[in-house]
């Protein structure tokens, strides 16, 4: 919206501030001036305004001038337009509001023998040519420009009809279904039974509050004019406008609430301009009103306002005097409120001779009558906001509230931080991917089929459902990197996954991780090696080791069991189980998927893509492990290596379990040092180098003891099918 400072100043004769200062003062009071464009010597500036939708009353020159008057405590020139006396009309022009639920007021004035011509500056307060010139507003004719001028001046839509095209009087009514109306934009419209129209006794003339009609528009031949200024109900106008895909200045205002009392003023302004080039008024202003709407707008009940409440909500000001009763009164009065003071308590019994200090700080309250143009003001808090706003937000002090409570972190905050730090330590960057995926992706990653939640208005087909898993997003991000020739990828994401139905949606926190490429990073001096299953497993083990869990194990199922998630290679993936509960899955992406889907780039690189998920809601049920130190033995540890040969069917888990069962306290550690397969071994066999460490807390181990331990180890691994390599 554009505002001329020259026009503002016409309403504010006492305004001393320059255009720049005025713009800043308005902006800091919520009437935002977005841009200031100087118009040249003596013409002032043009403001580009950005006014919030609740302040529709300020989207015009008089409204902005009223704000400036309140800020500076200036007098605002009243909007009054002298009209010549009317010639009697017999009978008076007929206006009937049939749609009493949608039209609150309709004023009509008949002007006869007018001359339709060009606009110019008519009189003080009607500088149509000058202001339109500066605003670059197109001039059409004195009649049309007069209604536009009233709109720009005071934000009240008005309309001029060619009176001779009107048959009978005016009826404001709902349209008849299928009724036709050609609007001013030249479009022939078929009306809906819900549309609100201004009609005559035969036909619809205009879409009420939205747009005038073609057939009754002012032309060069027009001699007699009917000036309409009305008040229409917001919802009725919004629905009519929306049904016809229209958004006009008039509909914008009516949808947000117009000033019930503005219609006669706008009508007078339009009439005065038009009569300046000849003609006369026939009859008095016809003013049809619906009492129910008047009560809800222009005759609202006063609102009680207590000064103590102003202070309770707003607090301290930089100026120690604070907000006085006089200051509150002057702000609200300037904005158009009428205040009736109600002194309560002791001071009420002695209304005279109250000392000045008591007058400002004593228990004061008011009954505040609200201005008809401020439908956004309804409650005490609205008035408090007005006081704060016009007083100036930045004149309030910066204070801090008193505080006596403890601070609670989320119960899982520490666990989340632990998981994040393990993943970062393992060299994974944290990523955030889309909350959405395609229905197909949802189908092959959902834990329970049929529990994928679809969007009613998805952004696109690829984003049609709420992700049931972070895996599609992870694969998309991996693919994105590969497509940009970033070939070493290690990412993790902590995010929400969704499942459920239209009735109820469950949200669970999940950790996803994905990797492809080199580990460690390629360098000139170290041999490259591809990141593999065991790198991921290590990260999972480390993450789990931050939690208190007596049992953690990894397993897998044969492909035909159908228990492995579809996106994983059935023989290169593992389920993670902690305390008997499945807490995740990870492994190589199923080759079928890797080839078919977006990660095909990885296949070209001959790299295997690794991906996994941990179900954090389950993991977070475990307490975090708090480190506990134990005494480190000062006696020499002894290492013994065993080169074992095993059948392919014997997994490390078997050897590991057998070693654990030995329960030798001095056997403090055993680990796999090497796994190798070579031709010299028997068919279906592999070799494993087992390293053991023995140490006692209280003594140096003797050779006989060690020999006994070794014998028992060979025996126990022998029992599960491993033999010593010779």
């Amino acid at each position, binding site marked *: 919206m554009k505002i001329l400072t020259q026009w503002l100043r016409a309403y504010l004769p006492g305004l001393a501030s320059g255009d720049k200062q005025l713009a800043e003062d308005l902006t800091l009071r919520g009437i935002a001036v977005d841009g200031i464009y100087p118009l040249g010597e003596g013409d002032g500036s043009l403001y580009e305004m950005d006014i919030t939708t609740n302040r529709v009353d300020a989207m015009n020159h008089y409204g902005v001038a009223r704000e400036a008057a309140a800020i500076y405590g200036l007098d605002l020139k009243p909007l009054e337009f002298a009209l010549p006396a009317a010639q009697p009309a017999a009978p008076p022009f007929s206006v009937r509001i049939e749609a009493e639920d949608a039209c609150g007021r309709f004023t009509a004035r008949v002007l006869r023998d007018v001359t339709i011509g060009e606009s110019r500056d008519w009189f003080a307060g009607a500088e149509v040519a000058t202001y339109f010139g500066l605003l670059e507003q197109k001039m059409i004719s004195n009649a049309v420009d007069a209604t536009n001028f009233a709109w720009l001046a005071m934000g009240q839509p008005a309309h001029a009809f060619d009176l001779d095209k009107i048959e009978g009087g005016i009826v404001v009514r709902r349209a008849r279904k299928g009724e036709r109306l050609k609007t001013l934009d030249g479009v022939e419209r078929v009306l809906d039974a819900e549309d609100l129209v201004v009609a005559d006794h035969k036909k619809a003339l205009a879409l009420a509050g939205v747009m005038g009609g073609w057939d009754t528009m002012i032309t060069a031949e027009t001699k007699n004019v009917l000036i309409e200024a009305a008040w229409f109900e917001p919802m009725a106008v919004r629905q009519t406008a929306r049904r016809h895909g229209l958004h006009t200045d008039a509909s914008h205002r009516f949808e947000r609430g117009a000033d019930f009392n503005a219609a006669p003023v706008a009508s007078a302004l339009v009439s005065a301009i038009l009569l300046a080039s000849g003609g006369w008024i026939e009859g008095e202003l016809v003013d049809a009103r619906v009492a129910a709407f008047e009560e809800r707008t222009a005759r609202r009940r006063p609102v009680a306002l207590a000064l103590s409440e102003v202070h309770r909500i707003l607090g301290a000001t930089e100026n120690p005097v604070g907000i006085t009763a006089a200051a509150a009164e002057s702000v609200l009065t300037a904005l158009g409120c009428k205040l009736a003071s109600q002194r309560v308590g002791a001071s009420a019994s002695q209304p005279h001779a109250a000392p000045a200090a008591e007058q400002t700080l004593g228990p004061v309250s008011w009954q505040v009558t609200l201005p008809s143009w401020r439908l956004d003001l309804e409650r005490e808090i609205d008035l408090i906001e007005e006081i704060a706003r016009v007083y100036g937000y930045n004149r309030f002090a910066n204070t801090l509230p008193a505080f006596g409570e403890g601070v609670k972190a989320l119960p899982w905050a520490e666990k989340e931080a632990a998981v994040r730090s393990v993943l970062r330590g393992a060299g994974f960057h944290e990523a955030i991917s889309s909350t959405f995926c395609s229905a197909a992706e949802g189908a092959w990653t959902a834990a329970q089929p049929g529990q994928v939640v679809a969007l009613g208005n998805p952004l696109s087909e690829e984003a049609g459902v709420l992700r049931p898993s972070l895996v599609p997003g992870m694969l998309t991000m991996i693919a994105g990197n590969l497509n940009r020739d970033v070939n070493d990828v290690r990412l993790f994401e902590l995010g929400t996954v969704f499942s459920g139905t239209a009735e109820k949606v469950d949200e669970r926190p999940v950790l996803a991780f994905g990797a492809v490429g080199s580990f*460690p990073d390629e360098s000139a001096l170290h041999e490259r090696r591809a990141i593999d299953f065991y790198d991921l497993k290590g990260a999972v083990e480390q993450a789990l080791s931050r939690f208190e869990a007596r049992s953690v194990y990894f397993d897998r199922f044969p492909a035909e069991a159908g228990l492995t998630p579809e996106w994983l290679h059935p023989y290169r993936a593992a389920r993670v189980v902690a305390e008997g509960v499945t807490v995740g899955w990870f492994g190589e992406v199923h080759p079928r998927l890797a080839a078919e889907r977006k990660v095909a780039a990885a296949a070209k690189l001959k790299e295997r893509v690794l991906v996994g998920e941990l179900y954090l809601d389950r993991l977070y049920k475990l307490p975090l492990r708090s480190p506990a130190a134990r005494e480190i033995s000062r006696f020499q540890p002894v290492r013994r290596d065993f080169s074992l040969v095993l059948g392919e069917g014997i997994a490390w888990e078997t050897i590991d379990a057998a070693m654990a069962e030995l329960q030798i306290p001095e056997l403090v550690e055993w680990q796999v040092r090497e796994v190798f397969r070579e031709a010299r071994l028997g068919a279906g066999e592999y070799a494993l180098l087992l390293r053991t460490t023995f140490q006692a807390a209280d003594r140096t181990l003797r050779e006989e003891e060690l020999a006994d331990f070794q014998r028992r180890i060979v025996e126990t691994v022998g029992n599960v099918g491993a033999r010593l390599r010779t």
Partner: protein
Amino acid sequence: MRNEAIPNLTAFDEAALDEAFAALERQAREAAAALGGEADREAFRLEWLGRKQGRLNEVSGRWLKAAPAEAKKALGVRFNALKAVVEGLLDAALGAGPSDAALQTEAIDITLPGTRRLLGAEHPITRTMNEIVAVFAALGYSVGVGPEVETDYYNFESMNFPPGHPARDTQDTLVIAAQERKPLRDRLLLRTHTSPVQMRTMEQQPPPVRIVIPGKVHRNDAADATHSPIFHQVEGLCVDTNVTFSDLKGTLDHAMKALFGPAVKTRFFPSFFPFTEPSADVQISCIFCGGKGCRKCKDSGWIELLGCGMVDPAVFAFAAQKQPAYDPRKISGFAFGMGVERIAMMKYGISEIGSFYAGDMRFLGQFA
């Protein structure tokens, strides 16, 4: 290098002894100075201190034996001194380690790049969110969260959005499918702000409340350089007796100084949000130019950063349905909300909001 043979001593007066021992010490020092690697040191040790053929052994054998009784003591003193010198020379040679020449053969190119173990980076959104939360935790705010799929009641109705408010339109809000048959308040949607957690928190605990709410939100927005259908907010709520607008100002002024540096100034503008009144937009003095005006702040010297206001009594009335202590005549409070992406973009000089969600290793690696 060979040393001269040990001469036979003929005179045993003090001067003669001094001269003889000085000659030996000179030879030892010369020999020690020329020592190279370990082999040299071992040869030196054998030559001088060797138990059988060492030169000191020879001295003690030949000179002491030949010395008259009255000269033996003077000779012994000098012998011990010489032995100490030789031992000292050997220790010094041992302590010096391998010679420079030997070490030079092991030289490496120290200008080759170091091998860096890749450290995972915290996502800039997580990082920024944590920073904001930490600032408010220090002011006594607990952390709260809520679901991303919300009901119309929590997202809109209880936040005082009137029916028919444009934000409720599917043009602005992403909705869950098949909700049409439900009453409006029960319809599920993706929360458009973190504000519903205000209501959820108040329903669960009576005042005082001091809570900060980080979270992901969604809107039906077309993606461009600064808009994304997915973004993050941090919301704050403080409710108690006697919480005022000046407290809101002081709190946010402090928080902005903590986040952006003590020189930052704040400015409050009237604004409009359905769930606060009075409502304000907060600007901070431009962190790039210090307020002088630059391209980043469009020459205004100010950057708009967050929205806030005093909790609207209507919102308290909704909370009071479950917790009667939220009586707007007795308590008051403020709420604020800020976009995490916007702050992160400003702090780290990021120009495309989409970078946050692409998972590009090169982008994320910069935050390690």
